């Protein structure tokens, strides 16, 4: 890994107008699934071409397209369009949008304000009330223009749902090249929608099971050195990589604690796998499970108080929850099939998992007490769910029937809005970052 992948980021955000989110008419109620999407207009507001933005396409139009793609992927919005073109200097009148049925209007105006610096003014209006709800001026280096659009979509999402958005985020995957998985793997990072791909490792060695620390600038993953896996920490800003000093054994399944200070993982020794935690400051290691069989795939609740994990102590792999000191281990999954690779939602309300049943792997969610289990995906081999920081979407790995190499897909929590993330040629094991600063 080199420092070369560390990109300089210029992103300053000025928040104006209303704070946080409203209880007003623009609130999307998603407590009962998506009852009625918000009718939203995001007109193209032309700015002309700007150097280093969207390959010379009209920058304002390109940014609006990204904002629509972001918000459209959630299922919480239905887009309303209105005839007519707008230039950056034009006033945007509410009347045509009101007539078309739009409840909300997003107006984004972009211009170059300095040496290679874009200003994107993103404003959310209540169409019927004819007033500004919230707005931001987003300053960003021109080549990072997509981040400005993602920040704008995050603002709209946060205001209308009450949850932080997940658009200005990164995705970590294992890039797969070759006729079958594992022949040539590289660690790749990219925007959550697949854009701005960066190669983090040009591997001779196999890499697997990558995860972000809170935020998006530190990662941990499994790297095979001379056929033996090691847990490796990488700082994406400094380019520094460190192999963790852990007790002898075969480690796997590393994840950061919510405070970023420790890493929880599974260590297999003499045919038995248990869950351990290593303190990154002191290097101290604590063992949390001590049972026969395999205990693996640990993951913290967002407050760090509990750990969900997978154990086959009762036969098939099933999900268990324990306090973060290892006490009170309790099985939570009792439905048909094996339950594996759990991940606790950042909202705390759900646990996503892989269901293994009849030689199929599918993605599901359940409440942390194991109730309300439901299956979201319907592929042949869907696995490795990873939550969006909003807790409103999941990435997962899908291997289509008859295909050797997997792809990375995103789904909403209804399972109805699936889309494939465009990663060339193939990728596996997605890990979704936290929000970027």
């Amino acid at each position, binding site marked *: 890994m080199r420092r070369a992948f560390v990109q300089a980021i210029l992103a300053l955000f000025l928040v104006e107008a209303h704070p946080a989110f409203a209880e007003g008419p623009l609130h999307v109620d998603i407590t009962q699934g998506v009852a009625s999407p918000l009718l939203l207009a995001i007109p193209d507001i032309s700015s002309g071409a700007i150097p280093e933005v969207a390959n010379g396409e009209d920058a304002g139009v390109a940014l609006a397209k990204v904002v629509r793609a972001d918000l459209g992927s959630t299922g919480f919005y239905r887009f309303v369009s209105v005839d007519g073109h707008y230039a950056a200097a034009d006033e945007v009148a509410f009347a045509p949008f009101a007539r078309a049925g739009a409840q909300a209007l997003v107006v984004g105006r972009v211009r170059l304000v300095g040496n290679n610096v874009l200003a994107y003014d993103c404003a959310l209006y209540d169409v019927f009330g004819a007033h500004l709800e919230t707005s931001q001026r987003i300053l960003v280096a021109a080549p990072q223009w997509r981040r400005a659009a993602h920040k704008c979509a995050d603002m709209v999402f946060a205001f209308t749902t009450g949850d932080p958005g997940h658009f200005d985020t990164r995705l970590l995957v294992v890039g797969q090249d070759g*006729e*079958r*998985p*594992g*022949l040539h*793997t590289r660690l790749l990072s990219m925007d959550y929608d697949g854009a701005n791909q960066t190669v983090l490792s040009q591997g001779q060695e*196999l890499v*697997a*099971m990558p995860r972000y620390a809170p935020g998006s600038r530190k990662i941990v993953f499994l790297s*095979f050195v*001379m*056929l*033996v*896996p090691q847990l490796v920490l990488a700082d994406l800003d400094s380019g520094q990589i460190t192999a963790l000093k852990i007790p002898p054994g*075969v480690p*796997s*399944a590393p994840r950061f604690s919510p405070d970023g200070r420790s890493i929880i993982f*599974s260590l*297999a*020794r*003499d*045919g*038995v*796998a248990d869950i351990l935690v290593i303190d990154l400051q002191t290097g101290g290691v604590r063992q949390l499970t001590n049972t026969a069989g*395999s205990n*693996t*795939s640990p993951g913290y609740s967002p407050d760090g108080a509990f750990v969900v994990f*997978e154990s*086959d102590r009762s036969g098939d*792999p099933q999900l268990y929850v324990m306090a973060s000191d290892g006490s009170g281990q309790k099985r939570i999954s009792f439905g048909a099939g*094996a339950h*594996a*690779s759990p991940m606790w939602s950042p909202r705390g309300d759900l646990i996503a998992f*892989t269901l*293994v049943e009849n*030689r199929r*792997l599918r993605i599901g969610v359940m409440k942390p007490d194991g109730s309300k289990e439901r299956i979201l995906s319907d592929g*042949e*081999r869907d*696995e*490795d769910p990873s939550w969006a920081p909003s807790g409103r979407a999941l990435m997962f790995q899908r*291997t289509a*029937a*008859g295909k*050797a*190499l997997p792809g990375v897909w995103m789904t909403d929590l209804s399972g109805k809005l699936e889309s494939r993330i465009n990663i060339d040629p193939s990728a596996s*094991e997605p890990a979704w970052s936290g929000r970027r600063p």
Partner: protein
Amino acid sequence: MTQMTPSRHSGILRHSRGPALLAAVFLLMSCQRLAQPLQPPPQFAMQAPQPAPLSVQQDVAQNRAMRDPDTPATVEDFERYARTTRILFARGSAELSDAARATLDRQAEWLKRHSDVRAVLAGHADLLGPREHQFALGERRAAAMKFYFTVHGISGERLIVTSFGKERPVNASSDEVSQSQNRRGETILIGLPGAPRP
């Protein structure tokens, strides 16, 4: 009959679970064997099946190695002697089948003759199970191989257990025949010509 003794013994060892048990089982089975009536020598049983050609090959290989103790330790020689570096497991299981034990017997024989050679034991699993569970299963498979080798006199310090889980399948098709090839354990010599760097 004397030629059959070693294979009988390894057959007994197959069912043992620990070194402590081993001696007792060994003794018990030896007594049983003595109490059995002697079989007629094979050369007089005209209808008896021919010996399996595989064991003839094994004998040839063993004899050659015995005749020439200076046969250099190479990956090629190990593969020729053991016939395969790979054993297969049943789905979700780390138990060694009879076929797997026969392969490990030959590998152990070779490793005994080349006591300076170390080996990585790599467990793999099929694509039909969850990733991290399969990873632990791979370790369980490699640990079973290590246990078998140590019972057969190979020092544990020469053996490195590792797992690839489902990260490196030999066959990515989802049919059963393809997936059965992924449930495997591989013995990889290290520090030899043609082997991975130490």
